[in-house]
C-alpha cells in the first residue's frame, strides 16, 4: 500500500508517541486502582490528581473541577442531562444552534420531546450564530446555552465573547456550556477569561487516546450525577477510573497548548496553500464556511455536479483519507445538517469534502492530494447526469 495521506483529523487523530509513552506504565505495572492508604493506590491517586492539575494549568482553570468522561459525546451529555435532570419542563429553557454537534443537538431534541422550551438559533451563510435570534431566544427561564466553539464540519469559530455578553446581560443565571473539542489545537483556551460554566473536550481529536474526554466545571459544580455506582474520585463519574487514558489526555492537552501557536501557523500556511491550489485547478468549487474567523486546520469545499462518496472512494484507492458531507456516505442517509443550515442545496452538500490536515501533514502531501483530486473530479463530472 502507498503511504497514507491522512487528511481527516477532525474525525480522529493518532495518539502521539509521547502521550502513549506517558500512558504505558498505567497499562502495564501501574494497573492498580486509586485505593486509599495503600502504596500502589496512592501512586495512582496521585497520578490522577497530577493529571487534573496539569489540565487546569494548561487551560488556566485553577478554580475548576475536572470531571473525566468516556469522550466528547459523553461530556456533552453529562453537562446537558446533569443540568436538566430535575428541571420542570414548563419553566426551563435550553438554547443551542442548528449546527452544533449531534451530542448537543440530539440531546436537546430529547428535551424538546419532553416539553422543555428548546430553541435552536439559526446561523448565517458562514455558520455564525444569528445574535438577534439568540437575544429573542433568551428569557428568564433560560437555564442553559450550549455552544460549539469551532464547528466540526466547516471550521467556523463562533464569536463567543459576543454571544456570552448577550447571554450574561439578558440572564446572568443562564449557564454557558462551551464545547472546545475542535478548538484546542488552534485556539487559545483560557477558562478564567472565557468565563464559561462548563467546557467539554474530546481526547482523540487532540492526539490523545480514544475513550476519554472531560468536563471543566466552575465550582461549585452545578450538575447532578446521571451515572451511579462506586464513587472513587468523582461523584459524576463513578466506577473504575480509566487511569492510563486520564494521564494520556492530560499530556495531550499540555502538548496542544504548548505547541498551539506554532501548529496554528503551520496549519494556516497549509490551509492557504491548499485553498489556492483547489480554486486555481478546479472550477465550479465553493468554500463552505467563512474565509476569516475559520479554524486554520479546516478546509471544506463543495464540487458542483458530483457526489462526495465517489470522490472520497477514488481518493481512498490512492490511500488519501478525507471526509464528505454526502448523504450517501453517512450512516443514516441524511444530508449533512450543517451544510443545509448554511443554505447549501442538496447537490452542494452531497458534493462536499472536508479536508482537515494535522501535525504530520506536509505541503507535499497536499500536492499529491490535489494532483489526484483533479482527474477524479474531471472523470466524475464527465459521467454525471448534471451538466
Amino acid at each position, binding site marked *: 500500500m502507498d503511504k497514507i495521506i491522512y487528511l481527516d483529523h477532525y474525525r480522529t487523530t493518532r495518539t502521539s508517541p509521547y502521550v502513549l509513552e506517558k500512558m504505558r506504565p498505567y497499562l502495564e505495572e501501574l494497573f492498580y486502582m486509586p485505593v486509599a492508604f495503600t502504596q500502589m493506590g496512592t501512586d495512582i491517586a496521585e497520578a490522577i490528581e497530577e493529571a487534573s492539575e496539569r489540565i487546569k494549568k494548561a487551560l488556566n482553570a485553577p478554580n475548576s473541577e475536572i470531571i473525566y468522561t468516556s469522550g466528547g459525546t459523553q461530556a456533552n451529555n453529562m453537562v446537558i442531562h446533569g443540568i436538566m435532570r430535575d428541571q420542570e419542563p414548563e419553566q426551563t429553557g435550553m438554547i443551542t444552534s442548528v449546527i452544533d454537534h449531534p451530542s448537543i443537538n440530539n440531546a436537546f431534541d430529547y428535551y424538546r420531546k419532553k416539553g422543555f422550551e428548546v430553541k435552536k438559533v439559526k446561523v448565517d451563510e458562514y455558520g455564525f450564530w444569528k445574535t438577534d435570534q439568540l437575544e429573542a431566544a433568551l428569557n428568564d427561564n433560560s437555564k442553559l446555552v450550549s455552544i460549539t466553539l469551532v464547528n466540526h464540519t466547516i471550521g467556523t469559530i463562533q464569536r463567543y465573547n459576543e454571544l456570552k455578553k448577550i447571554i450574561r446581560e439578558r440572564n446572568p443565571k443562564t449557564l454557558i456550556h462551551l464545547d472546545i473539542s475542535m478548538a484546542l489545537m488552534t485556539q487559545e483556551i483560557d477558562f478564567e477569561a472565557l468565563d464559561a460554566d462548563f467546557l467539554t473536550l474530546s481526547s482523540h481529536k487532540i492526539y490523545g487516546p480514544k475513550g476519554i474526554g472531560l468536563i471543566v466545571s466552575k465550582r461549585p459544580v452545578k450538575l447532578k450525577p446521571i451515572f451511579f455506582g462506586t464513587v472513587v474520585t468523582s461523584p459524576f463519574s463513578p466506577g473504575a477510573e480509566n487511569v492510563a487514558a486520564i494521564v494520556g489526555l492530560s499530556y495531550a492537552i499540555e502538548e496542544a497548548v504548548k505547541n498551539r501557536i506554532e501548529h496554528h501557523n503551520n496549519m494556516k500556511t497549509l490551509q492557504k496553500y491548499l485553498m489556492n491550489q483547489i480554486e486555481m485547478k478546479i472550477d465550479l468549487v465553493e468554500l463552505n464556511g467563512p474565509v476569516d474567523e475559520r479554524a486554520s486546520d479546516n478546509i471544506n469545499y463543495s464540487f458542483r455536479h458530483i*457526489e462526495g462518496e*465517489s470522490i472520497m472512494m477514488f481518493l481512498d484507492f490512492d490511500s488519501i483519507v478525507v471526509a464528505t458531507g454526502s448523504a450517501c456516505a453517512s450512516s443514516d442517509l441524511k444530508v449533512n445538517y450543517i451544510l443545509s443550515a448554511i443554505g447549501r*442545496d442538496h447537490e452542494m452538500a452531497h458534493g462536499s469534502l472536508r479536508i482537515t490536515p494535522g501535525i504530520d501533514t506536509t505541503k507535499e502531501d497536499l500536492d499529491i492530494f490535489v494532483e489526484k483530486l483533479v482527474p477524479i473530479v474531471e472523470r466524475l463530472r464527465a*459521467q*454525471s*447526469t448534471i451538466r
Partner: protein
Amino acid sequence: MAVIKYTKEVIEHFKNPKNVGEIENPDGGATVGSPACGDQVTVSLKIKDNRIEDIKFLSYGCASNIATGSIVTELAKGKSVDEAKKMTWKDAVDELGGLPPVKVHCSVLAVDGLKAAIQDYEEKKLGIKHERKIDEQSIIEKLKSVIYPKTGHNIIDEKLVKYLKYENGKVEIEISFDETDVYKQNVLEEIDEHLHEIDGVEEIDVKVVEY
C-alpha cells in the same frame, strides 16, 4: 456494528464503468431520481428489431449508483425489450455479488431508469399508451420500490406500512418506526419521491405511528 463495504465486483464497475455516456438520437431515454436525494441516473437506448442494440447511462451519485448503472446496462444490452422489462433490481444486486442493505436503493433506481427509458421508447416510437389505474394495489406495488436501508428489503415486505388508503388523488399512509430508527427521514423522503412519480397522486399524507 455492521461492516459496510462493497464487493470487488462493485468496486470494479465503479472504477471502470461500462456503457457510460449518452446515445445521440436515442429511441428511448429517461432520467430518474434527483440530486436532492443524492442520486440520479439517465439511461438512453437504441432499439433494433425489438432488441436493445445499444444502451448508455450517466450517473450522479455514489459508487453503488455508478456500479449499478454499469451492471444494469450491461445486463440489458442485447436483450429483447420484453426480456429487459422483466429485469429486477435483484438481478443487478446478484450480478454485483451483493450490495450493502443501505445501498440497495441504488439498484432499484438503475432498474427504474432502464424501465422508464423502455417506456419512453414504447410511447414515442410504438405509440403505446401506458395508462395505469391508480388504486391501493398499484400504490403498494410502487412502495415496493422503497427500500428500508437497514435490511435492504422493501418497506412493504418489511411490514413497516400499517395502513394505506387511496381516494380522489390523496394517499394516506401510516408507517411505524422504532424511536431510535436512523432511517426514518430517509424512508419518508423516498416514499414522497416515489408516490409523486405517479400521475394523479396529488396529496400524500404520511403518519408515523407507534405500534
